[in-house]
């Protein structure tokens, strides 16, 4: 595993952590939240981003306390039985389930807006294969790919988003409502979490960064979450101010709709908003790549022999591809996939993360103290 663990720079860590959240499911934002909360959806965005920042700080603390190569080895050190046999499988399953649904919905969105006659399996499989192709490389290679592509994705995103600004007409809809309702707020906080679920990738990545000071690790992880939160905020503002909360909640893909309105008759082709499919496809590919990379690396880190570990890694990434492909068949329609995501998988995932991460942090602190004393 020595070749795998060549350290990456703090900047690369920032980009990799950034792409491992939000980037996959961004095209689903913000319809569900707005349909339940209207203009108050801003509160659930702020809450979820704050939780994501808090949990990522806890993950960094666990990783710095334990200094193990991956999440799985950290767990087997902290809790020899529960860790590797309960916590890891559940965390990985929840993360893979969210990835699967996000990918299936992405294929459905591409079909309904851009490729009506292309079979959905082709769209999903091509994304999965490219993601797996990136994921089988070493950490520094994955980090370099993300470091190269993610800024381009962001620039292109800013470009197409600026083009949608002339359609903004409801600035009045951006102000929160005069009343605050608690139950829809909790509901939407639970339903938004899928954007920030990263399957404890931060614990896997943090020990492999050349940190100057431990503080930098916390600042960088928090900055990644905050940056992605800002992207969500910008998209929220653009979509609510363009369509208004009422029309927005009638669209499954409000952002795809808004970008399809961008049309420059003077440009050499009209639908400039279609650039957004380049942005989203590369974002979801890298997002899946980072998740699959962490998954494969974690599973292979239990084997000492380097050649065997490599084989196990390839096997687990292929297994993830196979599972996600099967999910394409299991989730037949947009309505079913959204129901599973928003009502089941995402709330369970948030509940799990909120319980497990702080617990791990507390255990790792105890472990660290005992280590120092002995």
């Amino acid at each position, binding site marked *: 595993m020595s070749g795998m663990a060549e350290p990456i720079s703090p900047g690369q860590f920032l980009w990799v952590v950034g792409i491992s959240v939000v980037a996959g499911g961004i095209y689903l934002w913000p319809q569900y939240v707005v349909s339940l909360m209207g203009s108050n959806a801003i509160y659930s965005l702020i809450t979820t981003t704050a939780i994501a920042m808090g949990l990522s700080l806890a993950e960094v603390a666990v990783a710095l306390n334990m200094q193990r190569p991956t999440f799985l080895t950290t767990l087997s050190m902290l809790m020899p039985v529960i860790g590797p046999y309960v916590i890891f499988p559940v965390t990985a399953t929840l993360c893979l389930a969210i990835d699967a649904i996000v990918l299936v919905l992405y294929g459905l969105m591409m079909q309904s807006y*851009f490729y009506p006659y*292309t079979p959905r399996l082709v*769209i999903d499989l*091509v994304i999965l294969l*490219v993601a797996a192709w990136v994921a089988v490389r070493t950490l520094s290679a994955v980090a370099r790919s993300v470091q190269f592509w993610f800024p381009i994705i962001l620039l292109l995103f800013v470009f197409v988003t600026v083009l949608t600004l002339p359609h903004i007409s409801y600035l009045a809809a951006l102000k929160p409502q005069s009343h605050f309702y608690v139950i829809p707020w909790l509901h939407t906080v639970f339903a938004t979490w899928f954007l920030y679920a990263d399957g404890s990738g931060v614990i896997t990545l943090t020990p492999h960064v050349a940190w100057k000071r431990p503080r930098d690790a916390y600042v960088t992880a928090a900055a990644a979450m905050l940056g992605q939160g800002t992207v969500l905020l910008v998209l929220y503002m653009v979509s609510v101010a363009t369509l208004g909360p009422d*029309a927005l909640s009638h669209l499954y893909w409000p952002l795809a709709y808004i970008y399809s*309105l961008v049309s420059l008759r003077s440009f050499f082709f009209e639908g400039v908003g279609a650039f957004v499919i380049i942005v989203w496809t590369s974002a979801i590919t890298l997002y899946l790549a980072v998740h699959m990379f962490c998954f494969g690396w974690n599973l292979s880190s239990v084997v000492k022999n380097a050649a065997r570990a490599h084989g196990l890694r390839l096997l687990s990434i292929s297994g993830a591809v196979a599972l996600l492909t099967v999910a394409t068949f299991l989730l037949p329609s947009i309505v079913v996939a959204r129901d599973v995501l928003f009502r089941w998988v995402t709330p369970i995932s948030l509940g799990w993360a909120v319980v497990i991460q702080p617990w791990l942090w507390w255990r790792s602190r105890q472990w660290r103290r005992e280590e120092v004393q002995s």
Partner: protein
Amino acid sequence: MRRRRWAAVMLIVSLSWLLAGCWDQLPMANRASALALSVTKAAPHAFRFTFYFPNPTVTVSSISNLATEREFYTSTAVAPALGLAYRRVQSQITRDLYLGQLEDIIISADLTTADVAALINAYNRMGVVPKMVYLVGTPNNRGTLPVNLQEPVPTVYFTKYFDCRTCQPVFLARREWKVWDAFETPGVSPVIPYGITPTRIDRLMVYPHRGRPYIMTRQETLGWGFLTNHMVKDTVGVRLANGLVVVNNVTDVAVTHMAIEAGHLAVAAEILARGDIAGWPESVPLTNAVLKIVERQLARAIIRDCLAAVNFANRTKTDPFGFTRDYLFRHPAQDLRDEKSRGMIWPLKLTVRVVARIPITGVTS
């Protein structure tokens, strides 16, 4: 290493085949691209859908001696819904009926709110058709596409006119997504520009909660333009004791505040208007005092337009300005958000304060 390179090459080759969109590839020559669609009422529950296609036999050299009515060919179907009309028209033409290039939808004024809402909803549901098409209203049973010498095929008169922001004294262009949005949002009555003749589009057609649309007068349309910041260049004539002063390029910035007062939606509008002097009576010297009078008269004219527009809204129980919507964004009343209360909820009570300025004058007397 070599195997890995082969895998990469195979991946790139298969990607370029799989994702090039060739699954639905169809040559342009095999498509009939409709540029405009007109919808009129044919029977109580049926509409006449007419699709306009550019005549493919037109060439640059033949265009000058071609009768204007031959620039487009049409295909018509009477059907209860857009999807059914699509199928019937498709069975009449030899090429694939394609709506991806549609530019305008012409809606006859005898279609009720429910008819238009169903039409727009059906259109908006189709994933791959452009949502940027312009909607335009015409008098009953005259859903025809104006074709004249100004704009030879394949340019469509309406598209050219609405694309040109400065061609319209009041910016009336309405795109499909915007109208759909107004149909979905409580507290605003959808509006569509209306042309009494196909090439004179200077009024608005306002859709009430149910029934046929109301048509604003020109003055009411101007008031709507001033109150909703859609004024591009109005011209106002002000009569002094010694003659007529003409102020043109009148534009404005309106800021509105809403509150509920005694069962009314009280709208306080602050309008800052400005204009240029275009005509001045020979015998009147241009002094500061006279200019002040002209400015005051201009402000009064704007107030009259705004009040006419609000009176129209109260008379027809509509809210074409979206004042109620802006109020509901901040104070959502769940019981008001159902189908029955769409549109006007409270009568409007307008308090308008207009400050008019004429900063530039090119003549002294």
